[in-house]
């Protein structure tokens, strides 16, 4: 397997305004201003980055997986995908993608759904929904603000009869996506702590987020 070199800030065009490693299992949120680019890097490979977007000025406008999929008539997110809001506006555009496809139908893992998927013993394992709720709480939002999400670097194929599941990832160390903000966007990420399926290779690892803006 070819190991992609980690991304150095110097390899990025534009002025770096934020460079942060999201520890494994942790949440992160930040506002990416219109015109800025958010790069999300899968540092060690096969690490799902669960992600919800909100209009920073009016968080009732938020990411809609349905509208995003309908707009491109495809379930997979990839280079060129417009990430749409519930109001039908483009929030961010995927302007670079070294992976090829990402999931937006698989949702976020939760303590509660873990009990259905893996057994009641998983009730107290950490989960993306815990990360999302915690982070929304820092922004005076809450459970009503939970909505559909993106799973960067996660692989969820759908077979002809509708059979689906989270299967072995196709990501690798250093794979990244660039998201150009078309509005001031509050980005909330859960670095997925799931250990019961292959979305993190059964071993949660860090993600890196880098925000840049054009020079001058």
């Amino acid at each position: 397997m070819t190991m992609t070199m980690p991304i150095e800030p110097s390899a990025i065009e534009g002025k770096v305004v934020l460079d942060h490693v999201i520890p494994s299992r942790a949440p992160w949120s930040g506002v990416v201003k219109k015109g800025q680019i958010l790069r999300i890097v899968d540092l060690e490979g096969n690490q799902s980055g669960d992600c919800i977007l909100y209009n920073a000025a009016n968080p009732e406008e938020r990411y809609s997986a349905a509208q995003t999929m309908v707009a491109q008539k495809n379930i997979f997110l990839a280079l060129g995908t417009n990430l749409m809001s519930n109001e039908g506006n483009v929030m961010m555009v995927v302007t670079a993608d070294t992976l090829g496809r990402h999931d937006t139908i698989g949702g976020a893992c939760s303590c509660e759904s873990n009990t259905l998927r893996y057994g009641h013993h998983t009730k107290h394992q950490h989960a993306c929904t815990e990360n999302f709720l915690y982070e929304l709480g820092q922004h005076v939002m809450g459970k009503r603000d939970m909505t559909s999400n993106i799973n960067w670097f996660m692989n969820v194929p759908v077979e002809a009869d509708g059979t689906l599941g989270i299967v072995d990832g196709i990501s690798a160390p250093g794979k990244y996506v660039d998201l150009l903000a078309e509005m001031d966007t509050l980005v909330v990420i859960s670095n997925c702590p799931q250990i019961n399926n292959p979305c993190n290779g059964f071993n949660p690892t860090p993600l890196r987020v880098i925000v840049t803006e054009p020079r001058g």
Partner: protein
Amino acid sequence: MSTDPHVSTPLKARDHARAQASTVVRAMPTIPASTAKDLPAGVTAQDVVWDETLDAGDYCARILKAGTRLRLTNLEGDACANLLAYNADRPIERINVADTIKVQWNAYLGKGKLILSDMGRVLLSIIEDTCGNHDTICGPSTEKSNARKFGHGENYSPYPNARDRFLLGLLKFGLGKKDIAPNINLFKGVRVGEGGGLQFIPRSSKPGDYVELRAEMNVLIVVANTPHVLDPRTKYTCTPVRLTAYRGPATAQDDPIRVATPESARAFQNTDDYFLS
């Protein structure tokens, strides 16, 4: 200014208003529900708790007590029943479409499938389905998507959109925009093709097809009957859907849907557990 002599005084206006009351249209509630006709086989009139028909663009929001069956009948075969569901006692718990398809390992709905909440519990079971073509992916139409197809999509226009209809239903229960979760659409099928492409099934259903849902807790449902967002027709086309709800027994411990899979068994266990304390 009206100069109609029939309504020129309050009492004439009263008589005029009262004379309208026996009007029958094809989309309206049956009140009292026990007078509903053409009931599902085996259902007696006294057990009917709600009967209402929604025409193109219509919506309704209603609480179903646990054990209630709701039959949605696609009377003429071209309805699209957009559906949202909540725990009626605690509506912060609501339908989670992603969990619904992920937990059941399949993107498509049909007889025997569960509609799950975001708290790992069962809101509704699909106990009958003669159609088999439904949509868990595309969500509701919006003012913008309707305007693109029909010229207008405002709630007050002749082409109301599903998202605004959901909002109105929710507002009547004290809920709002934030409560419009990802939803499902009954009677219009969407399939995922090779490479992830979405395919709308043009003739998804036939006249008389029905889906029967069983409420596994007290459930608030909101239904909007509006053209599917991927329906390519530029004429606002949606035929009536009839909603008939009736009392039924609580789900048995050996219910075939409950015991069908380990995941469904645990979902019902969680639901039972919720009612214990």
